[in-house]
């Protein structure tokens, strides 16, 4: 198996799907001649031409709407948002149109579109460029939301997303693009809606997704040295949530910590807690805890930026607390 960067895995998925289906096209800011702001679309313009790899003006609302319209008549657009922060400008087209077309038309229309781009904090970019916005989209019926942590998942989920007949929100990890991992060649598909046990353990479950997975791994390694066995469930899909996998891991370890980059109020993690307490309350040996970003805007100052985000020490503290261990 080839070792690829997360961005290369996405590039491979795009190229394979565009090769397979001429209805697939890519539109976004700098996706063509610039080769992608994060180089996800490297080489695609030369390979597929300017009608299929389209440099859009800086008009998120406009080109999101153009993509939705094209999807309504059977094309399969992939709309790259340079970051999800900018996609806030396109919310109306994503939420009021794409998510609702099937319903409002009484099942006459489908909207096979993928909106994708990087999300999350980091890199000293302050408030407007450092936000984990997945809960915004997970809120809306009619959308599916995916957020892969590894290069292999990124490739497999993007291929599924492009083939799906529903509007998909794909939130990539801005800090993960250069991360390497083994990626199967060719037809590698990860089903949307299936979580993945990334680490087997028996004392406590950590439930997470995207970049936070790596902090959880780091915490799990340190905890293992102290004799605590951690299971890590990577949700991969945030809408629909894989209830079965969430309940299975909780039934196995009887304790859960949810790690989420975004803000605590109305976060995706809050819904995971709801699933656990309403369907597996009797299995729990301790209250479920959440480790989230702090409930503040992101700062530019390096020390503040670090303090706002979840990290391994915070996760370790939460795990010890649900285990009723010292230091919690």
């Amino acid at each position: 198996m080839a070792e690829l960067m997360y961005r290369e895995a996405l590039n491979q998925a795009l190229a394979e799907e565009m090769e397979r289906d001429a209805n697939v096209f890519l539109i976004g800011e700098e996706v063509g001649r610039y080769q992608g702001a994060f180089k996800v679309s490297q080489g695609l313009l030369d390979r597929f031409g300017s009608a299929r790899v389209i440099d859009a003006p800086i008009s998120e609302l406009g080109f999101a709407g153009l993509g939705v319209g094209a999807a309504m008549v059977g094309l399969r657009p992939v709309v790259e948002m340079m970051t999800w922060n900018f996609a806030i400008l396109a919310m109306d087209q994503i939420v009021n149109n794409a998510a609702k077309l099937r319903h409002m038309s009484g099942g006459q229309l489908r909207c096979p579109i993928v909106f994708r781009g990087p999300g999350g904090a980091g890199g000293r970019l302050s408030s407007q460029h450092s936000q984990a916005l997945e809960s915004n989209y997970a809120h809306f019926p009619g959308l599916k939301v995916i957020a892969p942590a590894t290069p292999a998942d990124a490739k497999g989920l993007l291929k599924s997303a492009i083939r799906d007949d529903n509007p998909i929100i794909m939130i990539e990890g801005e800090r993960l693009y250069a991360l390497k991992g083994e990626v199967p060649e060719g037809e590698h598909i990860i089903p949307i809606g299936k979580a993945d046990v990334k680490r087997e353990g028996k004392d406590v479950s950590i439930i997470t997704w995207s970049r936070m997975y790596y902090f959880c791994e780091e915490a799990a390694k340190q905890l293992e040295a102290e004799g605590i066995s951690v299971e890590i469930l990577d949700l991969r899909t945030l809408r629909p949530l894989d209830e079965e996998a969430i309940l299975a891991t909780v039934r196995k370890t009887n304790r859960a910590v949810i790690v989420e980059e975004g803000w605590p109020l109305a976060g995706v993690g809050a819904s995971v807690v709801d699933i656990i307490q309403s369907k597996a309350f009797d299995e729990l040996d301790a209250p479920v805890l959440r480790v989230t970003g702090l409930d503040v805007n992101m700062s530019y100052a390096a020390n503040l930026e670090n303090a706002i985000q979840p990290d391994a020490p915070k996760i370790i503290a939460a795990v010890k607390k649900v285990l009723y261990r010292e230091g919690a």
Partner: protein
Amino acid sequence: MASKYSKDLLLTMYRKMYLMRRFEERAGQQYGLGKIAGFCHLYIGQEAVAAGVEAAIRPDDYMLSGYRDHAQPLARGSDAGMVMAELFGRTGGYSKGKGGSMHIFDIENHFYGGYGIVGAQIGLAAGMAFASRYRNEDRVTVCYFGDAAANQGIFHETLNMAAKWKLPVLYICENNRYGMGTAIARVAAVPEIHKRGDAYGIRHEAADGMDVLKMYESVKDAVEYIRAGNGPVLMEANTYRFRGHSMADPATYRTKQEVEDERKNDPIPRLKDYAIKQGLAKEEEFDAIEAEVKEQVDAAVKFADESPEPSLDELWKDTIVEEGEEDVRPRERVLGVKVTRWPKYPSGQELKVTWDLEPREQAEKADKAAGLKR
């Protein structure tokens, strides 16, 4: 003097306008009776626009609209009973009663919906037109919106792209002079909306939206220009709604005199007078059409009234498309007729994309002009 129009054309346009008028009058009445709820934006007064457009385009051209969207699908040939049932929120409606007044969709007749957010359909229309170019079809997309929508960001963002990429779309701004209760001149720096086409270098014009024949001529020219590959046209159809913004609006922001004056321009009697004066049709022929349409609309109301409410399990359908799930064909579902006009698009294997959105030589020339090297 012989008219340049055929009798058939005039009578067809008359029948459509009269159907829209009667339908909307009955919809207003049913709203009063509590059978229709929500907002109910009537088209009364604007019929010449939809009838003129429909006569000038092909049935397979795409169309979208805003929330004032009952009449345009009727002009396309949608079933009046099913549109009325949608207004009633009944299962016999085009969207099973899930879309209601502001979201009429009739894909069989290439009517791709009414949209409740002001201007949102302007972006969708560009995407549909883009798809036509992408597949090398000579279809035009007709997009209706109101005067107020021209002040939304999506209007400007989309016109820029549509112009740059020469998308085959006809933007028809139905300027009825009021965005809800606000006269357009009070909030628009340039109230002649069509002039905004200059900013994007696209053909634009004002059309008489109270005269169906003039409307027909304007649209015929514009569509020919678009189909020839010249890119979009922004047409401002100057029209007037005789009623309030919606049934919930008593329209106290304009004078009785203004409405009375405008009613003198009513496009429906105007067309009738013209046809009779030209000796193309007799009074009795119009009487017959009117009687038929009245019957059609009565039947539509009856159909809607007798159609059941959707069952509660419908709540869980039509949100996410399951794998292998077919699209719902409304007339097939409701009337049991075999629908054959359902759009079929080429699969990825059949499709050859030959369009060059930004030819390489052109891009390189632009680079050179900017002093860039590649």
